[in-house]
């Protein structure tokens, strides 16, 4: 009995210590130190892609430039994966300082987070096989099979606006690209930036093309904590500077250019909207 009591007390002490250790860890992580935490996509070629320990893409280049202008060294940036469904939560809970992850500015989202920018205006477009001649735009889609991601804005828009189209939905765009290359679907639809990223990938080079007729406007902003106007102003200045000194164009060409993609010149480069 005595032995049992002693060991029980010891076990409790160990658990308590363990909990204390956990608490210490999390408070350290929360207060941040000098690390600047940026949320990006890890799986979107041309925009935000993790390859080993390297991060590439247009969003990554913009985030690096902005971070530099905010006074952070490139080495201090800590990249955090920001999947679409978790972006607001990551910002609200302070797990990231800002998010540049194909983050379209919408009113619903503005109610929860603040946006700087836009730094790019994308639009919904179509990706087809390189030898496709019939599909020239959204109005030529009737009777065709189209692919997008389950529940995404692009998928919903197609369902609402083009009821004659059959829509295959998958969990990720990569599965849609597989279905497109195997001939299961005729086209893949989402933001033209994402499409250009896939078309520029080595294994699809020359096999896929972006149609180039956008039918929506997605204004990509940089998400920050709600109400942080000071940071928003600074980021806007940084974006404007990036556009003015030519780094913006360079980043577009390097990341999205290889597949022959040109951003819509009528709306790009955009003028950052005033912070509210």
């Amino acid at each position, binding site marked *: 009995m005595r032995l049992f009591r002693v060991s029980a007390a010891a076990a409790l002490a160990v658990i308590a210590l363990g909990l204390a250790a956990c608490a210490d860890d999390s408070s350290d992580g929360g207060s941040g130190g000098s690390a600047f935490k940026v949320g990006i996509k890890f799986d979107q070629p041309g925009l935000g892609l993790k390859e080993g320990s390297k991060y590439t893409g247009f969003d990554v280049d913009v985030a690096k430039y902005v971070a530099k202008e905010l006074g952070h060294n490139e080495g201090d940036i800590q990249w955090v994966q920001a999947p679409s469904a978790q972006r607001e939560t990551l910002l609200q809970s302070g797990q990231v300082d800002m998010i540049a992850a194909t983050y379209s500015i919408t009113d619903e989202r503005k109610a929860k987070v603040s946006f700087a920018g836009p730094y790019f205006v994308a639009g919904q477009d179509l990706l087809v096989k390189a030898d496709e001649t019939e599909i020239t735009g959204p109005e030529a889609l009737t009777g065709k099979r189209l692919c997008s991601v*389950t*529940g*995404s804005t692009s998928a919903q828009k197609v369902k609402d606006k083009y009821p004659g189209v059959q829509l295959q*939905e998958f969990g990720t765009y990569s599965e849609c690209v597989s279905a497109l290359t*195997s*001939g299961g679907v005729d086209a893949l639809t989402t933001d033209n930036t994402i499409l250009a990223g896939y078309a520029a990938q080595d294994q699809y080079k020359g096999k896929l093309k972006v149609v180039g007729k956008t039918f929506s406007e997605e204004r990509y902003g940089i998400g920050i904590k709600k109400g942080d106007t000071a940071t928003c102003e600074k980021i806007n200045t940084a974006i404007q500077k990036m556009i003015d000194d030519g780094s913006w164009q360079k980043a577009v060409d390097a990341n999205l250019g290889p597949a022959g993609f040109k951003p819509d010149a009528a709306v790009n480069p955009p003028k950052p909207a005033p912070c509210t």
Partner: protein
Amino acid sequence: MGDILSKYDVLGAFGMTIYLAFFAAIGSLVLGTVVAIMRVSPVKVLQILGAWYVNIIRNIPLTLIMVFSILGALYILGISLADRQSPTFIVDNGVRWAIVALSIYHAAFVCEALRSGVNTVPLGQAEAARSIGLTFGQSLRHVILPQAFRGSIAPLGSTLIALIKNTTVAAVIGVGEAAGLMSKVIENETGSIQVFLVFALGFVILTLPVGMLFTTLSRRLAVKR
């Protein structure tokens, strides 16, 4: 919470969840019974085949089977479960392949549940059945399986609850059930606790009665020995 219910067809999405679960439950019960019979049969080849089925299917993630059914079976092998000219070709194929994938996957678990039920039947009964001249099929039909089903109600109930929840995996091939609608709501309204609560509650409402029903059934139908 109210505006999610009024803005989106939550009931319709859960209707699709029930539709998938209903047909997949029938499919997996039939297929699982066949595999279970193979596993307890006196024929060695059938035993081995049944054991392979269970061990392979049980160890493949359902998501993989689901994605393969469309990307592999439909688009590459060309096995279509709907009319190619039909205007709802993709939707029909998605739903039907989802039912097939769910049936194939859960048949492995139904088989094991039934086999545990078979083991509750004392060996002497099978021997007695054979000694009065019943064939293997007759002894299975009249003596062993009726008792085996009654003995395996509880594990079958757990499998059914798992099946109902696993219908959410069908969202990866674009079937418009609850999880598919949830990703749509999150995309439009941003993810909040409310959204998760609505859908979690929906599943609890579906599965809780099933669990209670099967607990009662297993108590009332148990073979008293």
